[in-house]
């Protein structure tokens, strides 16, 4: 066992992040894995810290995964997604409209105003806007985009921007809005969205967060970390409250085929290039 604890990076998008990782730290330590965590204000800081060797594992958003993957490619290193939540698999985003709207299909959005979340949100901005582009409607050219930027750098984990987009639709300030599928029900139940809101389109399925490691660094500790994650049982009351807070029922092995849609989106919007180039230059 190494004298250095396995260091994990997570982004502090909500105060509950401290509760979650304090709880997991205790769980890992009780099982013989020395573990600590560092919180970052943005995923960009966290990705750079992973490449600088400040942390061994990054709890990454899908966009941060792509940033890591591209940086690794640029620097001749190897990024690996070792685990993810069951709820990170097979998400979709929806384009929603008000009841009695004159919009009936994606094509009707031409010339209209569409609300989106934070500009770095895969689920409320990048993927649905790319989806519309694939349908022949280029954002900012064929329709106006009302961006609701909240906490840039959190990659939409803080759903405030998405909620603001939904409110703008409800108030009639926009003609459509982009949301994560589960937030459509959440915002309706919260009363943010009035009854009668419906989706005119949904994107193909995609995956969300993963634990990212580089170059098999701290191989034994990472293997033990992954083994402990995958062994967590929802029946165990010690971890169940943490799993509930983190929004999962069980951890699953990482998979990367679910990031293709987002990868195409960031290519299309060229939104990773400058970050990847700048960090790569600092790491050379």
């Amino acid at each position, binding site marked *: 066992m190494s004298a250095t604890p396995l260091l994990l990076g997570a982004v502090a998008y909500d105060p509950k992040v401290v509760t979650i990782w304090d709880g997991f730290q205790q769980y890992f330590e009780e099982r013989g894995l020395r573990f600590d965590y560092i919180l970052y204000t943005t995923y960009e800081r966290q990705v750079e810290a992973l490449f600088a060797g400040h942390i061994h594992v990054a709890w990454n958003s899908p966009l941060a995964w792509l940033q890591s993957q591209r940086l690794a490619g640029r620097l001749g290193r190897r990024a690996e997604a070792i685990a993810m939540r069951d709820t990170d698999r097979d998400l979709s985003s*929806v384009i929603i409209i008000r009841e009695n709207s004159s919009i009936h299909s994606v094509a009707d959005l031409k010339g209209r105003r569409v609300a989106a979340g934070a500009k770095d949100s895969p689920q409320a901005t990048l993927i649905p806007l790319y989806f519309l582009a694939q349908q022949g409607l280029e954002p900012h050219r064929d329709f106006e985009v009302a961006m609701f930027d909240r906490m840039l750098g959190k990659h939409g984990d803080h759903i405030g921007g998405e909620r603001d987009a939904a409110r703008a639709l409800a108030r009639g300030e926009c003609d459509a809005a982009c949301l994560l*599928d*589960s937030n*459509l029900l959440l915002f309706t139940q919260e009363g943010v969205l009035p009854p009668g809101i*419906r989706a005119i389109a*949904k994107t193909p399925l995609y995956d969300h967060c993963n634990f990212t490691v580089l170059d098999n660094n701290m191989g034994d500790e990472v293997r033990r970390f992954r083994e402990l994650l995958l062994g967590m049982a929802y029946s165990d*009351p010690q971890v*169940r409250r943490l799993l509930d807070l983190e929004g999962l*029922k069980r951890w699953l092995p990482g998979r990367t085929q679910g990031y293709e849609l987002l990868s195409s989106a960031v290519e299309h919007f060229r939104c990773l290039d400058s970050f990847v180039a700048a960090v790569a230059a600092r790491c050379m």
Partner: protein
Amino acid sequence: MHVDLEGLGFERGGSLLVKRALRRAGPAGIVTVTGQAADLDVHLRAWCRAEGHEFHWRDDSGTGCAVVVRGSAFDERWSRAERAGSADPFEPEAVVEHPPQRWGLAGRGALVESGGPEFHFMLDRKVEVWSADAARIYAQAAAAQWDPATAIPWETQFDLPREVEDAVVQIMTYLIENETAALVVPSRFVAQMHPHFREVMQALAIQAADEARHVEVFTRRALLKNKYLGLSTAGGQASLQTLVEEADFATASFLLSVLGEGTFLSLLWFIERHAPDPVTAAVCRLAAQDEARHVAFGMAHLREHILADPSIRGTLMDAVRRRHEALRHTAGLNAEVFDALVLLAAGSWSPADIAKGYDAVSTLVEEMHNSRKKRLLKLHFNEAEAEEMSRLHTRNFM
């Protein structure tokens, strides 16, 4: 298993029907879901993901149909749950000897999820608190609650000589502070009682509520024809302080209910008998009826406690002696209250009546002693112990 939600959407409760079908389908059971509500597939997929169920979309019929495979999260959540005894206290094992703190506020008989917070109820031993009579006494108390606004003939016209009215006010002032002590003591222990002992908690709570009414009606009687209350003495408060600050449940209960309220029963009936007006008589009669229940409850759980752990008798005797020592240098019952009781019993200022009144109060004190002794004997103290403890009881009565 199949569920047709018809036009019902997830935003209006569709998940209830799907959950019900999944429960019936059993572990790893499969449920197909159809419906005409807008975005059903979007909501159902997101809901399944959050709940840990598998979701598939089958489009072989052309109209589309969701296939949901029940996940294990629900069963896992409840797999280590515990049944917290049984609601009916007369069922075997219904009330456990030492309920875990993790059962917290759950009702007795509930299925308690594992992983809940640990509470810190200090009174968590059945032997210390339980009485099989608690449920009956609580039910009796609940049925006997009276409304201070209507149960007392407040409107009855009467005029007492000034000094007699003053005597009543002084007695009421004394009763108020004693009943306040009797409210504070059970209230404190209610907050420390493990809710598993529901009937005991309820009996204590209704006891506190009884005292709240007593404080109200005694205050109202005192102020019926006066602006101010009477005198509150340092000695009286010192005596009550030893009661209010007693930290041990059994000891506090013994001092308050068996010795204090037991003594008060005689006092309240004495005042009722000699009351110069119908309002004073009514407030004392109603209060005495309630106090009798408090005494019965104290006797019931202490009898069971002493049977289970006879060594506690020594602790209780020590407590009486300690309290006596602590109060040795105080005046006991204040002279104003004693004089007021004499005047009430006398009915006039004539020397012969005052002598009669004095004798009546002396008889009352002796009656109080005899009643205390009887109760102590019922709690399995011997004659000598009962005599000593009763004699050492505070001269302030409560």
